[in-house]
C-alpha cells in the first residue's frame, strides 16, 4: 500500500513537472496564439478585436496568474477550449486518442512479436548466419528513422506492389486494420530491433547458467528449457525495454501519423505547437504523461509476477 501511495505521489509530481515545463516552454517560444489564429497579414481583424480575444482567453494576465489558472483547471480535468479550433480540448483528445492508441498497441505488438521471436532464434544459434542476419537487420531497424521507413514502405508496398492504399481511408473494421499495417510496421520496427537485441543478450546470458544445464541434464526438451525456464528469467530486462519502447513509440507516432496522414495525438500535438494552441498542447501532454507513467507502473507490477522474489512492500 505504501508502495502505491509512493508511486502516486511521484506520478503527480512528474505530471506537475511536465505541465510546468510545457507551460514555460510554450510561453518562451516566440509567437502569439491569437495572431496565429487570424490572418493578420491581410488586415482583416482590428487590434481591438485581437486584444479582446486575448483577454477572453486569459492571455493578458500575468504569467503566474495564467500558470495558476492552468494548474487549477488541469487538476479539475478541464483543459479548456482550443484556441485554434474553438472546440473543447477534451473533444479533440477524445477524437484523436483512439487512432493513436490503436497505432501504439499494434506497433508494440509487432515490436514484441518480432523482437522476442528473432532475439530467441538469434540467441539459440549464436555466431551463425541467422544470428548475423538478425543482428544486422536489428542494427538497420534501429538506425532507420520513422519518416524514411514510412515513405519506403509506402513506396514499396502501396505504390509498387499495391497491397495497401496510399491514401488512408477506412470505414469498416477490416479496412481499419488493413490501413494500420504499414504505420504499425513503421512505428514498431525500431522497437522490435531494440527488443531483439535485448532478448538475444538476456537469453544468451541465461542459457549459460547452471540451472539451464541442469534442465538439459534432466532430459528436458529444448523447447521446454527455453520457453519455460530460460525465457521467464530473461524476460525482466526485455519487459523493461518494451516498456521504455512504448514511450518512444508514442513519440514516434508524431512522425508516423504525419507521413501516413493518420489522425491522432501526435499530429494534434504538432499542429498545436505550430498554432501555439496552448490548451490542446497542455491537455495532450498530460494525457501522454498519464499513459506513459501507467505503462511504467504496469511494467513494475509485471516484475512481481515474473519473479516472486521481487516485492514492493
Amino acid at each position, binding site marked *: 500500500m505504501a508502495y502505491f501511495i509512493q508511486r502516486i505521489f511521484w506520478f503527480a509530481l512528474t505530471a506537475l513537472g511536465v505541465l510546468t515545463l510545457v507551460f514555460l516552454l510554450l510561453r518562451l517560444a516566440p509567437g502569439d496564439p491569437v495572431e496565429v489564429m487570424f490572418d493578420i497579414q491581410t488586415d482583416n481583424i482590428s487590434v481591438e478585436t485581437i486584444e479582446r480575444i486575448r483577454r477572453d482567453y486569459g492571455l493578458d494576465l500575468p504569467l503566474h496568474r495564467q500558470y495558476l489558472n492552468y494548474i487549477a483547471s488541469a487538476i479539475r480535468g478541464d483543459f479548456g477550449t482550443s484556441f485554434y479550433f474553438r472546440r473543447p480540448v477534451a473533444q479533440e483528445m477524445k477524437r484523436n486518442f483512439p487512432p493513436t492508441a490503436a497505432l501504439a498497441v499494434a506497433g508494440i505488438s509487432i515490436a514484441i512479436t518480432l523482437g522476442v521471436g528473432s532475439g530467441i532464434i538469434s540467441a539459440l544459434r549464436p555466431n551463425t548466419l541467422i544470428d548475423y542476419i538478425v543482428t544486422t537487420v536489428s542494427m538497420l531497424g534501429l538506425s532507420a528513422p520513422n519518416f*524514411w521507413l514510412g*515513405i519506403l514502405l509506402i513506396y514499396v508496398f502501396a505504390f509498387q506492389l499495391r497491397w495497401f492504399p*496510399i491514401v488512408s481511408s477506412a470505414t469498416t473494421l477490416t479496412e481499419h486494420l488493413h490501413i494500420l499495417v504499414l504505420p504499425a510496421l513503421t512505428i514498431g520496427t525500431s522497437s522490435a530491433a531494440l527488443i531483439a537485441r535485448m532478448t538475444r543478450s538476456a537469453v544468451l546470458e541465461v542459457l549459460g547458467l547452471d540451472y539451464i544445464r541442469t534442465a538439459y541434464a534432466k532430459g528436458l526438451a529444448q523447447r521446454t528449457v527455453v520457453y519455460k525456464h530460460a525465457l521467464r528469467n530473461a524476460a525482466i530486462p526485455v519487459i523493461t525495454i518494451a516498456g521504455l519502447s512504448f514511450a518512444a513509440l508514442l513519440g514516434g507516432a508524431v512522425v508516423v501519423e504525419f507521413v501516413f496522414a493518420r489522425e491522432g495525438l501526435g499530429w494534434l500535438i504538432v499542429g498545436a505547437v505550430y498554432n501555439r494552441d496552448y490548451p490542446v498542447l497542455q491537455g495532450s501532454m498530460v494525457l501522454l504523461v498519464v499513459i506513459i507513467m501507467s505503462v511504467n507502473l504496469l511494467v513494475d507490477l509485471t516484475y512481481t509476477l515474473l519473479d516472486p522474489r521481487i516485492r514492493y512492500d
Partner: protein
Amino acid sequence: MNRKTLLPFALVLFLAFGAAACGGGEAPPADTGTPSSDSTPQEPSEPDTSEPDGPKVVTWSYHRGARSLDAHDQRGSPDYQLVMYSLFNGLVRMPDYFPDNGAPMPQPDLATEWNVSDDGLVWTFKLREGVQFHKGYGTLTANDVKYSYERLMDPDTELIRSGDVRNIEKVEVIDDLTVAIHLKNASAAFLMDMATLSGYLIVSEKAVEAMGNETFAESPIGTGPYQVESYLPRGEVIFKAFEDYWEGRPEVDEVRVIVQPDETVAALAFLQDEVNWLAVRSDEAYDAVVDQPGVTVVRHPTASYGIEALWLQTEKVTDRRIRHALAYAVDRDTLFEQFAAKLGTSKADTILPPSVFGHRTDHLPKYDYDADRARQLLEDAGVTEGSLTLTTATIGTGGYPDTLTAVQNFWGQVGVNLDFEVVEHAAWQAKYQAGENEFLIVSAGRREPDQVLVHFESTSRMGAVNYMFYNNPQVDELILQQRTELDNDRRLSILHEVQALIMEDLPAIPLYHSAHVTAQRDYIEGPDNVTTWYFKPAAMHFK
C-alpha cells in the same frame, strides 16, 4: 519524369534521408546516378486513365485539413477555396475564367442587379428569386443577407472574417428580395471585396441560429453547388452535389478533400490515381507529376495575384540610393529561371501583379540587373565594401531559403552581407511584427489593387500589414483617392501614379509573380485560366 525515373527520385530521397539520419550530420550531396538494376523494384502497371464508372468523384489532396467550414470563420486554404466556390455564394462573384481583355470584374451571383448612390455610400442589390439553402433550410431572403453581414459586424464577434465588413455602416432590408448596404466610406473596391472575401458570403440565418457557431463550422448551410456530407476537423471532408442548386446540379457528384501533409506521398497517391486532383506546391512535386501518362498539369498564371518581394524594413536602407542598389544587384531573370520558373509566371517589375486591375509597367523605373551601377550607388551613399549587413528570418517552405541564398550571393557580389535564419511560422510572424527582421521575404497581394496597396499605407498596422513600416504621405493620399474613386478610368490613372511613386521610392523590391499550378487526371476537364482560386469542382467536367 516517368515511372522509371521516379524510382531514382524516390531512392535519392531515401538515400539522402537515410544518410542524414544515420550520419548524424549534414546530408551529402544527393547521388543522382542511376541505381543498379538489381535494386530496381517491380515496375508497376500503368494506371487506368479511362473515365471511371460510377459516381464522378474529385479527390483533392491538400497538405493540411480544413480548420472550419464556416464562411465567416476561416483563413487560408483549403477552407477558403471550399467555402468560396463550393459551399456558399456571395451577392457577386468573380467569373470562372479570365476575360480576353482587361482584368476580371465581379459578376452577378445571388444578386441579379445592383446600383450605387451618387455619393457611393449606398449599394442596393436585387436578389435572385427562389435560391435554396442546403438540406431544406429554406429560401434565401434579404434577411439572410442582413443577418450574414451583421453576424460579423457584431462588436463581440470572435469570427475571423470580421474585418472584411468593417466598412459597412448598416444593412437595410427593403423587401424580401432587395437589400441596401450603407457604407461608412465610399469604396471603389467594394464589389471586388464582396467577390473575393469570404466575409461577404451568405449563410442561412435559420441554420446558424439553430446550430450555433460551433456546429455550423462543421456542418455549414449555404447556397453553393455542394453541401457537406461529412467533415473531420483537420481530416477528410466530403461534399455531395446539391440537387437544388440554383444554377443546376453540378456534374461532379462528390468532392473529397483528403489530407496528406507529405508531398512525396501525395504525389505517389496522385500517380496511383487514388487522388485525381492536386495543387502543385513545390518544384519537387511538379517534377514528380509533369509529363506523366494520364496526367494534365494546368498552369493558372492569371490567378496569380501574389507577388514575391523583399520588403525592406530597416533604417539602414533609409537612403533611397541603397534601396535602388539592392534592387540593381539582384539578377531577377536568373532568380526567376532558377527558383520560380516552374511555379511562377514572370519576374516582377511592379507591386501590382499583371492580372490585377491597374497593373502597368511601361512608365516605371526599371531595375534590371546592373552590378556596377549597384556598386556606384552604394559608394555614393557612403556604403563601403562589407559595411552593410542585413539580417532576416524566413520560413522553410515556399522556396524562400533557396531564394535568399541566391540573393545573398547577388548582394555579396556588391559588398552587402545577408544573414538569414530559418524558423517556424509562428516565430517568424512574431519576429517580423516586432520589426526584428531588417527585411522580409514574403508573398503578398490580392485580386483587388486596394488589398495590395494597404501594405504601403501608413495607417495600416505597422509590421503586420505594412511590413516595411513605410510612411509616405503622398502615397497615402493616392491610396485614399483610388479607394474612393468610383470612375474606373480615373481610378486607373491614380493606380498608375501610385505604382510609379512606390517603385521610385522602392520600399519593397519585387522579385517575381507566382502562378497557381494544378495537376489532374486527364479524364477531368477544367477549370483552367481561372481568375482567383483554383479548386472549383462545379466548373469541372469528366471526359
